[in-house]
């Protein structure tokens, strides 16, 4: 069964066409690595799936329906994370504000919710963050908290927009492995955007490369090849495989690394920096 279906989808933002005539299908339980340079449309695609950006042409189907905001089956970790530096709020209370946070009235936290939060935090190895105030957490610790938050409440589709930003190498691997295991155990479909293929290579089933409005979906062997990527990016791309690490090079420059240095700012703030890709 296809969880996500795009049929000749075009999405525009402010008159600019970010995705053009994209068709693809993603099956249940697949772990998809979403890659592409800054401004390729990774965030745009996820916002489209969430019903936040309706397509200007074509149709999007998620679980067989047109996307609609507030679908409880979809969990989302946005790329931009607002940080309130002065607020002294415990990790547990922070997560609790997102539980049924869209309902009117006053906030409340049932015992069952508390237990569920506790269990999920433990599952992501972030139990210690429950009692710590958010204002005193590092960027990486906040990231873990957000990941735990996304896994609450039995989602069937995970949209993770660059959850590896500001995590160190070791924890990047931990997070990827954790998401993979969590998703596989529950047959959850995952779209995981990242800036380096190698971060995901052990976990993913297929990759989705975005660029120049287009998309290429397939296994690493099918997609991460010089002809496919050269066509997608409209430039001469070389793919080099060293000891199971894959490097995508454009005129000898490592596309993925050099393009995304700004992401490692380490403080949890992420500025959108949409340089167009040459």
């Amino acid at each position, binding site marked *: 069964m296809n969880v996500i279906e795009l049929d000749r989808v075009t999405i525009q933002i402010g008159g600019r066409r970010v995705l053009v005539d994209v068709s693809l299908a993603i099956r249940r339980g697949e772990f998809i690595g979403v890659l592409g340079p800054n401004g390729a449309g990774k965030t745009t695609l996820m916002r489209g799936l969430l019903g936040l950006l309706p397509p200007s042409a074509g149709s999007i189907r998620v679980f067989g329906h047109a996307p609609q905001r507030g679908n409880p089956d979809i969990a989302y970790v946005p790329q931009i994370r607002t940080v309130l530096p002065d607020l002294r709020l415990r990790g547990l209370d922070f997560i609790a504000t997102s539980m049924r946070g869209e309902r009117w009235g*006053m906030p409340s936290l049932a015992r069952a919710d508390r237990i569920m939060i506790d269990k999920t935090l433990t599952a992501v190895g972030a139990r210690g963050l429950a009692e710590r105030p958010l204002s005193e957490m590092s960027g990486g610790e906040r990231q873990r908290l957000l990941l735990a938050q996304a896994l609450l409440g039995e989602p069937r589709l995970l949209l993770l927009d660059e959850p590896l930003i500001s995590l160190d190498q070791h924890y990047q691997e931990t997070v990827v492995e954790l998401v993979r295991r969590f998703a596989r155990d529950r047959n959850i479909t995952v779209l995981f955007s990242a800036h380096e293929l190698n971060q995901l290579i052990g976990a993913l089933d297929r990759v989705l490369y975005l660029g120049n409005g287009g998309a290429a979906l397939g296994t690493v062997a099918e997609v991460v090849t010089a002809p496919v990527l050269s066509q997608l990016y409209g430039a001469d791309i070389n793919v080099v495989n060293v000891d199971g690490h894959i490097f995508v090079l454009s005129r000898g420059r490592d596309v993925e690394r050099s393009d995304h240095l700004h992401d490692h700012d380490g403080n949890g703030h992420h500025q959108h920096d949409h340089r167009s890709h040459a």
Partner: protein
Amino acid sequence: MTTMATATINTIIAPMLEYDFMRNAFAAAGVAAIVSGLVGYFLVLRGQTFAGHALGHIGFAGATGAVLIGVAPLWGLVGVTVAAGIGMGMLGERISGRDVAIGVVLALALGFGLLFLHYYTAFAAQATALLFGNVLAVDRAMIVTLIGLGVITLGSLAAIMRPLIFASLQPELAEAKGVPLRFVSTAFLAIVALAVSESAQIVGILLVFSLMVGPPATAQRLVTGMWRGMALSAGLALTEAWLGIAIAYSTDWPVSFCIATLSALGFFVSRGVSLAKANADGHFQGDTTDQDNDRSKSRRDLRWRSID
């Protein structure tokens, strides 16, 4: 301890409460302080204090305009600030230069306020009352009005509190989860407008911040957790308002001055406390470079504050 308390009540508080105007002042200030402390908590949480500030100034035009056409200033204040709050909410959160737009409208509103004053020359005393408050002149009817407005304000706040918190902490996720961000932020600014109108009756338009920003900012530094933060914010606002009135009574200084001073005092003491706590926690690595950093950081803070 109890004898001291009884003595205090007998010698200081009881004489004050003999007067009708003092009882009214305490009651009115109490209502406005609790409303301001609670609404202000979210204002500070969302980093929208400038919008709150602007609403007060815009309200000045409403109040003076109302007097000119023979309506009570409170209703001019309420009408214009609520309209302005809704207008600001419609501008949306993400529009760049929103604060600039608000600033321009704020200045324009003050200009209109001045124009209305110009045409109503017998108005100087009332203008001072509007700008700096006149809690000692509050009457019964005003208290009833303040309570009514307060109930509406807090009732509306309670109705949107949950999505408001969600949208304030994680707007991107809240939007995806179906929170109508624009509606929530617009409704909230209308609530702020009501709270500003209440608080302006006590401390005046220019000093609204002393009840709406000082106490919540202090509370957010001191305690962990929302409910405790809200409770402390309201408690601080109430204490500062009442203590301010008491001090004003015994010193003959203006009430608003006393409240503003207490509010600032509370904020800076809490700042000192949290800084000292942070230093104590990290003192094992407190070598010279660290301290230098700290100092330059607080200097930077000061600079920001002076730009504000």
